[in-house]
């Protein structure tokens, strides 16, 4: 693992992909490209692992797909957020925010825990 790269946890990848698709229909390669660009290359995810995540979300009705032509005129499968996917993104993002906030609170507390079991 190169220094500074962060592994993506399973559930988190879904959230990131949903976020990526808010910009409009995208094929898999571009989803990853956008994620890497947005995180300045710090995000580490295997390209192949993206697809089961996409297909699973499609099966759950969060995203939908359609074959179309890519920028270089090749047949590519484009994914797009469904209304249900948007809702899911909102819910998950909020949950993520609360999680981050909680972890941050704990970590920024004083050097020693002040509470002890009675």
């Amino acid at each position: 693992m190169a220094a500074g790269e962060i592994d993506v946890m399973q559930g988190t990848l879904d959230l990131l992909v949903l976020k990526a698709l808010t910009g409009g229909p995208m094929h898999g390669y571009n989803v990853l490209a956008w994620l890497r660009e947005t995180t300045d290359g710090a995000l580490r995810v295997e390209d192949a692992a993206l697809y089961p995540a996409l297909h699973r979300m499609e099966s759950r009705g969060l995203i939908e797909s359609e074959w179309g032509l890519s920028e270089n005129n090749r047949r590519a499968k484009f994914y797009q957020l469904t209304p249900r996917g948007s809702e899911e993104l909102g819910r998950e993002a909020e949950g993520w925010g609360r999680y981050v906030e909680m972890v941050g609170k704990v970590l920024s507390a004083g050097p020693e825990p002040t509470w002890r079991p009675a």
Partner: protein
Amino acid sequence: MSAEPIWRRYKRWWGPDVESDVDEEFEFHIGLIADRLEASGLGREEADRRARVEFGDAARARRMCGEIGKQRLERTRRSERVARWTQDLRYASRALAKRPAFTAAVVATLALGIGANVTIFSLFNAVLLRPLPGVSEPESLVQLGRTQGGDGFDTFSYPDLADYRETSRTLAGVAGSWSTAVHLSTGRETERVDAAVVSGNYFDVLGVRPALGRGYLPEEDEAAAGVRAVVLGYGLWQRWFGGERSVVGATVRLNGEPFTVVGVAPEGFTGTQIHSGVELFAPVSSLDGLSPESTLRQSRDAVWLMLFGRLAPGVGVEEAQRELTGIAQRLEREYPESNEERGIQVVAGVGVHPGIAEAARGFLAILFGVVVVVLLVACANVANLLLARAVERRRELAVRAAHGASRGRLLRQLLMESLLLAAMGGVAAVALAMVAARTLVRLPMLSELPVLQRVPLDWRVLAFAAAVAVISGLVFGLAPALRMSRPDLVSSLKEGTPGSGSTRARARTALLVGQVALSMVALVAAGLFVRTLQNLYGVDSGFDIASVAVASVDVGRQGYDDERGGRFFDELIRNVEALPGVEAAGLGTILPLGHGGWDTRMFADDRPIGPEDEGIKTDQNAVSPGYFRAMGVTLVRGRGISEADRADAPRVVVINQALTDLLWPGEDPIGERLRAGREGEPVEVVGLVADAKYRSLNEESRPFAYYPFQQMYSPSATLHVRASGDPRGVLPLVQAEVRALDADLPIYRAGTLAHWRDRSLGPQRAAASLVGFFGALAFLLAAIGLYGSMSYTVSQRTREIGIRMALGARVAQVAGLVLRDAAAVLVVGIVIGGLAALAVTRLLQGQLFGVQPTDPLTFAAVAAMLLVVGLAASQLPARRASRVDPVTALRSE
């Protein structure tokens, strides 16, 4: 139209080949990586290789995607299937709702056809399928029957019951009962009720839990005598005690003896025979007080108990049969005098004696045969209606086919309509059947079965109705659906060409012929049963049935001794003879055409009796002097029974012609002597009377002997009263005379002799009325079908008829055209049906009397009726055809 969103349908082309889709997607991605690497200076091949490495574990991803895709595909297919079915259903209901008259006609026809079957099935269910009410785990109960020389299914002796009960391992319990009548009295009034004398373990073995109090204790069986305990039936408890719980512990009198009520049987339980309505259960050990035959419990010769048992857990009927046969053989060795040739047969289930079950099955098989005919005719009518509708719908279906509906899809939609119709017909049929069954159980014979007082609508009946409805839906729906879904797009879209009409017409004609043929079979069967009944009513019974009223009393169960009883009967006869409107009155111990008879073996006293001599099996009756006159029995020679034949006078007998012909053929029997049994005391023959029908109207001539009532006293006897007018008029007077002598004495079997004769013909009357009714129903449906079909043909041929009339055809000729078609259908149907009936009615041989299964008169009469009614049904369409106005007819196209 569909529950499925539009976008998902476009997905379908993605669907079927999940894997190649995934591959294509991956290749695209890898290609882009390779493009990037190539742009950074690598050779194409190297870039491609590195791209695959960078992409990662493609095989694993492919597997996972394939898995997800397959699951998704399955889900989609399932929901599409559901969507298609609901769509078909919605389409079908809309199509039916659009034609309410058609739908109503079909549903009504099916309700009759299916309803007839459900009605008969619900009777079958109530009598033979439904477990006996009130018992627990009926599936492990068995009936036991005594065989004699391998035959029969009869009653056992009490010591035999005890032996089977003690020795058997395959049966967890063996119990027995004897059906009798008792005089029950609470002090206020006395009533004769049907009772069962039962072994102590009776309720335990059946698993019948009393509604109140207790059943019997096994030790009450063994008590020497005098267990004065009685369990009341639920109905009796309600009727006599108003359902009062304090009845337990109360004292009632049975045949004059005090008994304590210990319990009440549960509701619906009326003994182990569905045809008996037992209202009271007394233990065997009370027998000494119940009837004079007090040695019954010790004798192996006296066989009087019906036995049944409960299989031990895990034991089958065959295993029990093997063990019990072994026990029977041991008893045969130990008690050769009584038990010689005596065997045992084990039959699963209680409730119906195997002999009665067989008769009931035969009867129901005939009824099912007829109602199946009704259903087939109904289905043919519906198929015909569907075929006629096919013409109207040709265009609609062609359009749908042109829009891409496959033949399978069209077929499914058409069948869905049929099944929907069948389902509606089935629901209506169940409602109809419940009403019909309630009416049917009032018919002769059926009305006497207590078990039919409630015909249950249980899961068996509903499952049967559903099955019949689905099968009918397929029967009447399949052929029209196949025909209608056939892709003949071009000809159908070119509206106006009658096209493909001839095969359709042929199919409809075939259906009509089939209906007529089926009706012919059913009506011939009905005709044979009606003729049988007529013949039976026409039989000379040898008694003057029409003018006689009867009433029975039993003074023995009222506690009279023989002397008091004799005085009572003397006085009763004198008083009744003096009544106005009474021409004669006599006592008899056997009611003719009533409940069987009582036979002994007779020997002539004037010749030696050889060891092989079996004697003549002879029925007998004990009668008072007025009997012959009251019953209109013809005296051929000698004298009848007279006042002089008292108990202390020389013993005499009057015999009939049949017995004379067997014992002294061609001779005068007067003055000869007879013995009843080998060791019987010789009795002088003083009279010869003409033969009569004693047990049933269809019996062969039967040897018979009459003894003087005073010389062969019976504590129970039937008064036979000959009235100068309507015998019903004298009945209340006779009953009043009985009450004047003993206000407490129950009178039973009071009615006219004609009523008892009719009752003895119950099965034949039920057969004639039921087969007749359903046969007529089948034919009514067929006639409606013929009428509908002819009307339809006329409406289709309006143009042709118009042309004929324009060319000068006369009105009569045009009407004749239609009638000729109808006549052709009828004649062919009658011929086919006649041939089929010849084959079928042979099966009825055993049920017929005085008429051959091939009776030409019946066949001819039915054929003539079919022809006349069939032509009458076609008359109306024919007249309509003749009224066609040529100008309008020609202009209409």
